[in-house]
């Protein structure tokens, strides 16, 4: 996936290895609630004003799990084939799972300082959460350059009765020119979070 870019950069090596098929790209859930909440996330109204009671629980959707696994598999795959001296550490850092998870948590905690990451709604109810923010992602990181990579982050707000009441989406894009060494994922994430921040200022009370 993202490691194709290192081949473009490395000239002869790229030519010899680009033909190698990397791990297949992951398939993301179109329903952000899949495996978490028995309702289709598409029916949740967008950009609706919402009153968030505290304390807040944060649930990361299964698409986070899929994305993190895909990154790990790609790392494992290519590290078995590429000498460490040729590893594109920039693209690995750019797609560091800790960056995405950390920035999302940072962003939400800036609004809800006592918010906690939790596994599921049962945990939310059991731990007395009065609101839940379910976070979903939709990464569209291209395999070849030039490409415009995209990354959507969506916050689904659940009220104290654990009913979804609103969703806010942030979108980020980054153009990676031919032979670019990174995918601009961090850039996309920051853009998406900035958009979300703006929307939260308006919609979240």
């Amino acid at each position: 996936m993202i490691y194709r870019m290192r081949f473009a950069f490395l000239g002869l090596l790229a030519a010899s290895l680009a033909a190698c098929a990397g791990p297949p790209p992951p398939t993301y859930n179109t329903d952000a609630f899949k495996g978490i909440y028995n309702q289709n996330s598409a029916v949740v109204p967008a950009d609706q004003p919402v009153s968030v009671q505290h304390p807040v629980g944060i649930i990361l959707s299964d698409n986070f799990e899929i994305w993190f696994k895909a990154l790990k598999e790609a790392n494992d795959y290519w590290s078995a084939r590429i000498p460490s001296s040729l590893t594109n550490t920039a693209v690995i850092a750019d797609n560091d799972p800790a960056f995405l998870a950390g920035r999302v948590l940072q962003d939400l905690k800036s609004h809800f300082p006592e918010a906690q990451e939790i596994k599921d709604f049962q945990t939310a109810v059991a731990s007395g959460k009065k609101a839940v923010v379910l976070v979903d992602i939709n990464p569209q990181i291209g395999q070849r350059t030039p490409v415009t990579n995209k990354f959507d982050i969506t916050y689904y707000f659940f009220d104290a009765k654990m009913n979804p009441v609103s969703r806010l989406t942030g979108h980020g894009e980054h153009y990676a020119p031919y032979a670019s060494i990174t995918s601009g994922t961090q850039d996309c994430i920051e853009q998406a979070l900035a958009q979300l921040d703006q929307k939260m200022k308006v919609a979240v009370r």
Partner: protein
Amino acid sequence: MVKWVSLAAAAALIAWPAAFAHADTCYETAQVNIDCSAKSGGGAAAGKPAPSRTELRELLRKRLAEPKTGDKPPPVSAEALSKSIHDAEARAKRALAAASSTADPARQDKALKAYNAALKDLDKASDTAAEEADTDAGHDRLLEMKAEAEEQLAREANERFAAQRAAAEAARPHDPDNVGMIGDKIMVCDAPVDGDHANCREMQHDGNSCVAVIAFQGEVNWRDSTATPCSSADLAQRTAFLARHADEEARLKNRQADFALDTTANCKAIIADYVKKAEAQDGPGARADYEKLRSFGGCGVLEKAEAELQAQGGAAAGPDPRFATRGDTTMIDQVAVPCDQNPAACAQAIDEARAGASPAAIAAIYANAIGIGLELGGMMGNAVLNAQAANMAHAAALNNARAARALPPMPRAISCNVRGCVTTNGLGPNNNASDITGTK
């Protein structure tokens, strides 16, 4: 004017060739100054065929002077009759104009009275003229014309008053369309209330709290579950709306009482049904009643019951059917949970990731690649030079042959690197120009 022409024609029909004179007197209607000469039907007979006005007047006098059978009173003059019709019609029109040009109810009422009086006069004058007609056809025609005149006046009145209403409506300051009533509650929206997707605040009956809703063409199709204090701007719009709509305020108060009664009745029914279904272990039914109860704000019992249940550990409730059993979240647990539990370490990891993808890091990767490329070039150069050195044995033999022929010896390579070889004659590689083959 058309009417005037028609009347003249009718008069001609009944041998009253009345060429109507200009109205030289004018009736004051509705205390409005009216320029009679400008509005009277002067020249109405223009275009009428012969006989001329003088001839017709003479003819009418003669006819009227002739003795009639029966005991009818002596007929009035044709001129007088036609004038009275004309005057009545003109007065009616002026009164109508006066009534429709004022918004003052008193003036309008006076003008309308004058209009009705003129209509009566027109009716009477027309009937009198019809009575004086010396043929049945003339009589009928005059009555027909009276009906036409009245119809035309009625039509004109309708048009004028409709125009007046429209002008008044246009001049009236319009209410903002973002505030209105939906059901028994006032909505303050960010767009027209009856728009396709209006974000609104539903003002609760307590007058202070608001619930966010989405209205679609005047119907609420989504409602936030929590009420929050209304903003001062929304409250101001609500007050302004009620000030403009006293009837809505009254309706709101009345409906508020009705609503409370309805809610109470509904709450009782739903709670009873809910308990019954819960006892019967009817999951879907209980769920439906639960939702109904929620839609009524919990009826004052739901929240308590839920709190009680939560206090009991929720064991009795069983799993919430909305909540799915989460599958494997190994990666999230590895990545996000530590980040959540240790924000400082998380921030450090974020900084490291940023640094790893920074322009400096990318430059380092490029530098590394260039270094590797040079190393590769060096390796390839050595391979070539080694081959070159291997050929030196052959060169030595050649040198021996040359020595035999007193030729200068060929220098032999002692050691090589990417830039060339140090040879037996003491020469080294040329450092000023190089390529990976070491041949320069």
